[in-house]
């Protein structure tokens, strides 16, 4: 009976049953979701394209406008500078946090708590208004007359305040990311370095940091992307970065939405460009992944090969 059905199916398709492709099951839900998504997509697109209030011609006009591009450059500068400085400071904080000397670890802990626990926006405004707290900053030797005083307002211009605010905030987040990376390095690695007589700094540089990289890099990539968008906050200080540049234009022309779209498109393009090197870096560090030795098996306690003779 069975034999017969197999024979018949062969005849039906004219193809050897063993060579037929195996098709994935597609649920009704899948078909429905395709249809719904396409319809919604068409709806949104046609609305965006036909609504004259979007003013795509204005978007196109300002997309490469000089002051927008200058704003973009400043945004890139702020991102790179505060990210680089923040990472360095964060590394220092992470090392301090891991210190066996209690006050040093506590100091880093307090810093991280404060800077992660308050909004960046508040921190930025705070640094900008530092002169209210300390009208003059002086550099010199304490309890002597040697040194010079600087007017805080002159020192803390908008860009400096932006840089200081973003860097100090970023350092707290980077410290936590780096510390997490450190703790992912196995205890055995540190013992191996110790048993070779490596100094603390050497151990950090050659053993801990390289192995912590695979877990630090992806998180740092996210931070860069976050920072790129986060720089828009410094527009409140009047720094003419990307968003502020757009705002300055629409304050004049009242073309608010088109200019916000210009800024958004640039943010989008840049974050998409940034995610490429991040994935490359991730690949680069993947070869250092630690191979964990298999758990000890029950070993039969007989004379092993090559030993008994």
């Amino acid at each position, binding site marked *: 009976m069975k034999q017969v059905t197999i024979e018949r199916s062969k005849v039906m398709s004219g193809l050897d049953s063993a060579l037929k492709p195996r098709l994935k099951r597609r649920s009704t839900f899948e078909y429905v979701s395709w249809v719904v998504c396409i319809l919604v997509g068409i709806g949104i697109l046609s609305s965006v394209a036909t609504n004259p209030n979007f003013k795509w011609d204005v978007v196109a006009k300002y997309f490469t406008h000089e002051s927008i591009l200058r704003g973009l450059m400043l945004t890139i500068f702020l991102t790179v500078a505060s990210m680089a400085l923040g990472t360095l400071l964060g590394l220092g904080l992470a090392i301090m946090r891991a210190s066996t000397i209690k006050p040093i670890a506590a100091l880093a802990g307090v810093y991280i708590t404060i800077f992660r626990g308050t909004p960046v926006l508040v921190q930025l405004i705070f640094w900008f208004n530092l002169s209210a707290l300390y009208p003059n900053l002086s550099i010199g030797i304490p309890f002597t007359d040697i040194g010079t005083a600087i007017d805080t307002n002159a020192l803390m211009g908008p860009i400096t305040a932006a840089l200081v605010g973003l860097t100090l905030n970023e350092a707290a987040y980077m410290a936590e990311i780096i510390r997490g990376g450190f703790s992912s390095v196995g205890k055995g690695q540190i*013992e191996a370095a110790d048993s070779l007589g490596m100094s603390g700094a050497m151990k950090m540089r050659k053993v801990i940091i390289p192995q912590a990289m695979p877990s630090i890099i992806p998180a740092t990539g996210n931070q860069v992307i976050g920072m790129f968008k986060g720089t828009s906050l410094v527009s409140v200080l009047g720094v003419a970065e990307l968003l502020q540049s757009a705002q300055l234009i629409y304050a004049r022309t009242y073309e608010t939405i088109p200019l916000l779209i210009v800024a958004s498109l640039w943010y989008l393009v840049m974050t998409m460009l940034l995610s490429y090197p991040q994935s490359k870096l991730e690949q680069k560090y993947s070869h250092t992944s630690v191979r964990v030795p298999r758990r*000890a098996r029950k070993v039969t306690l007989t004379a092993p090969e090559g030993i008994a003779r």
Partner: protein
Amino acid sequence: MNADGTIHAHKIRKSFGPKTVLKDVDLTIASGEICCIIGPSGSGKSTLLRCINGLETVDSGILKVNGDDFGYYETDTAYHALPPKQLALQRTRVGMVFQSFNLFPNMTARENVMAGPVLVKRADKKQSAKQAQELLTSVGLGAFGDRYPAELSGGQQQRVAIARSLAMNPEIILFDEPTSALDPEKVGEVLNVMQDLARKGMTMVVVTHEMGFAREVADSLIFMDEGNVVERGDAREVLTNPKEPRTQAFLKQVL
């Protein structure tokens, strides 16, 4: 540096919280002696080994390695911890081979072997590379220098780890269950390398479950249980003719 290679311990005590792991342990190992430490798990044998290389600090007692107080210097009233640099210097004279190999995964086999001389002793890179190649060849891995640990089998990794310890030219080398994490068929290659080493006159202290190795290679054998050295003596003598009832019970179980 004076070659010594002796270990002398007297009344070593070590506790982890409320648990006393080493209870007044005495130990004397001569230069060039091959000593195996056996015992049930939790008997304190690994802790004793780790104390000898400073991975654990002893709470009290005398511990002299290579003739010097290890990790501390003695005054009339107390032992004071050595500054890190001097402790590191003492550690370079005591090699350690771990159960889980602990090779640096970010370095190739050759770089692992060179790590000690180049990074710690500031030795010449070219010379160290040459020495590393010789050491890798001596453990049968001359062609594997450019491989990363993840590309090596457990037995190969452990042999690289032995070569890494040897690169520092230590007077003493400690093995903490070097074959316990290996597949059974890889145990032999590691034990062979250790046996070669034993012929070269280096002091070796081996925590092991390999009774065959203990019988064939070791000069002396220590049986530990519950933080005490229960029995010690000539390896073959203890294995074939144990005096203490606890040793007899243990050996009956494992042999």
